[in-house]
């Protein structure tokens, strides 16, 4: 199955209208499953749609644009891991459930903590959680006793800590070198997804800010007429357009490295944060309230900066790689 980026975008916008911010969580999840987004990356012979990077990129951008709640990024990580678990007898069953929307989740943190998982979205609704260890990747049942809800400033996401019960049995999805390779793929996928979410959000809040500047009048003219503000908007548009171009270039580059994906995530989240930060400023007082939408974008942007490893970590790694490659 193949669709162009524009067709995919069209479909995504029909599902999640960018004008309807933070849509209802349960309805959104149903819609995500119904649209087939959870089976998008799964090969056709396993019952999926066999769509590639373009579809994934467009989807995450659409979810970010409308600030859609729910564990889509985590669920897609589980689905990728299941897809790779060729040897597991229960694989097809689990995959069918996960593609249908039965919540299975994974950590979105950028680091691991001994004895448990952090930053796990919607764990209270999940039957299983993905556990990535040094040489083993497993799908473990979720026991409600082990959960701690961690309310974030960003109310569009619901994160949990999970204590791992070492005695529990789960499904082993990969071991040894295969696990190491899969862990790296999952990490790259998470970084790409967070980048897409960030670009979608940045695009939405930039548009909303421009609209606001065009409507709000002070000094007998729309604020949008002031060059000082126009130039800030033009800079934001420029950063965003270049970051988006990089997103597609790296997403479609078969030789892309983890450090480059990390640097992409560092860059796109920085762009998102900066645009959301500027949005509050350019809205004035109303931007600093809970009644207006600016804060939703700012908080999700800041959370995206922290999830999946921060900019310092990834930029340093990317710098090291670029340094090794840059010889006369």
């Amino acid at each position: 199955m193949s669709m162009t980026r524009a067709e995919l975008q069209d479909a995504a916008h029909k599902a999640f209208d960018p004008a309807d911010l933070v849509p209802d969580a349960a309805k959104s999840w149903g819609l995500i499953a119904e649209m087939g987004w959870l089976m998008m990356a799964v090969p056709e012979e396993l019952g999926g749609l066999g769509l590639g990077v373009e579809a994934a990129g467009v989807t995450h951008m659409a979810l970010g644009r409308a600030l859609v709640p729910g564990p889509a990024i985590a669920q897609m990580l589980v689905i990728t891991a299941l897809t790779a678990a060729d040897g597991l007898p229960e694989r097809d069953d689990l995959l069918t459930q996960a593609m249908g929307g039965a919540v299975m989740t994974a950590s979105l943190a950028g680091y691991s903590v001994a004895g448990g998982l952090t930053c796990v979205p919607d764990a209270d609704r999940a039957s299983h959680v993905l556990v990535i260890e040094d040489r083993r990747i497993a799908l473990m049942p979720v026991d409600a006793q082990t959960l701690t809800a961690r309310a974030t400033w960003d109310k569009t996401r619901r994160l949990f800590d999970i204590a791992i019960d070492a005695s529990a049995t789960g499904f082993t999805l990969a071991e040894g070198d295969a696990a190491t390779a899969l862990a790296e793929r999952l990490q790259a996928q998470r970084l790409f997804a967070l980048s897409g979410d960030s670009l979608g959000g940045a695009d939405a809040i930039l548009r909303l800010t421009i609209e606001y500047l065009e409507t709000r009048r002070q000094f007998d003219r729309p604020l949008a007429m002031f060059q000082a503000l126009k130039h800030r908007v033009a800079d934001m548009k420029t950063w965003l357009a270049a970051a988006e171009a990089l997103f597609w270039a790296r997403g479609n580059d078969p030789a892309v490295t983890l450090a480059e994906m990390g640097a992409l995530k560092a860059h796109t989240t920085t762009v998102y944060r900066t645009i959301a930060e500027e949005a509050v400023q350019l809205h004035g007082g109303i931007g600093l309230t809970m009644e207006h939408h600016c804060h939703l974008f700012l908080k999700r942007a800041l959370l995206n900066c922290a999830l999946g490893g921060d900019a310092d970590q990834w930029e340093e790694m990317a710098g090291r790689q670029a340094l090794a490659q840059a010889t006369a």
Partner: protein
Amino acid sequence: MTDALETLRQDVRRWLAAHAPQGWREYCTSNEAFLDLQRRWFATLAGGGYAVPHWPAEWPGGGRSLAEQKVIYEEFARADTPRLLLSFMSTYHAASTLFEWGSAAQQQRYIPRILEGEIWCQGFSEPNAGSDLASLKTRAERQGDVYIVNGQKLWSTMGQFADKCLLLVRTSNEGAKQAGLTYLLLDLKARGVTARPIHQIHGDEEFAELFLDNVEIPVEDRLGAEGQGWAVAQSTLSSERGLTLLELSARMRGALWRIADLIRAGGRENDPGILRDFGRLATKIDATCAIADQFLANRIAGEERVGDASIVKLSYSRTLREFTLLGLRLGGMDAQYHEPITFGGGMETGNWMADFMNSYAWTIAGGSDEVQRNIIAERLLNMPREPKSWTLAGDAA
């Protein structure tokens, strides 16, 4: 596809090993040496089929895909070949304007000569027409089948060395100021033309002032119709803002080793702060390359929007400034001691102070960053324009 590109890369590399000029940075410390090297190198490139990979396929040396062009530019940067500064305006500005607006006869007449080394410059700006280009005053009066031109042009890159000039003139004062402009092809050898070189901030004589005193230009050397000059000029400017940046951003990518060498020379390979700055710069350069690629792909597909090229240019100019500033910072005191510049050395020569100063060429020329921001805000994003009428305190009386 990737295999074919890899083959091309190896071909270019082999060709460069045999043909790339050596020691030119040391050699090019005078105008004479610069001109000599640029002419020879251009002729070598034209002979090897690498001078104009961005031209359409019907011209010799043209017809390379974007991916191929990128490979070629990357290899040129890697081999540290001189950038084609002298023929830059010829192969980009003049050629792309001629491809878009030239009649078959004009194309047949001028395009092959570019490959033979004819040098073009651009005469748009004037002392009182910079960012507000459409207010230009150089006057052309039609008399029979010639235009008689009088006026002054400023900042013409390579103007003192050029053979021909893309000239924007006023043929009418009626109506909107843009509507009175006409685009002419000026022979700089014509009677009444004087060029005076101007020293740039770092000492190079990169641009010139042109004085036009009753210069005759045949009507057949007009591009587009009389009064259509503004539209023709847009195609020249858009080539500068978008097309050349594919090459220049690939060159910036290829020149990252200069900063890497500084990091290594300073023993700072494990300094996290420096690594982050370097990683961030590499990412921004890649983003600039990506937006330049996307721009060209859209342009070829006929989907270019007004303002797209401005995004590419602003992205490039800001990233180049950061590149040169990081070099300057890592260069420490060494970068503060005066080093003779290499004429036509490109944007990243490793003479960090000169490179830093030279980076203003991209934030000012071809429409300054501020002008690009106006275009992005008002034309691409449709934000309202400035009110037209104004008075200064004191003007009222």
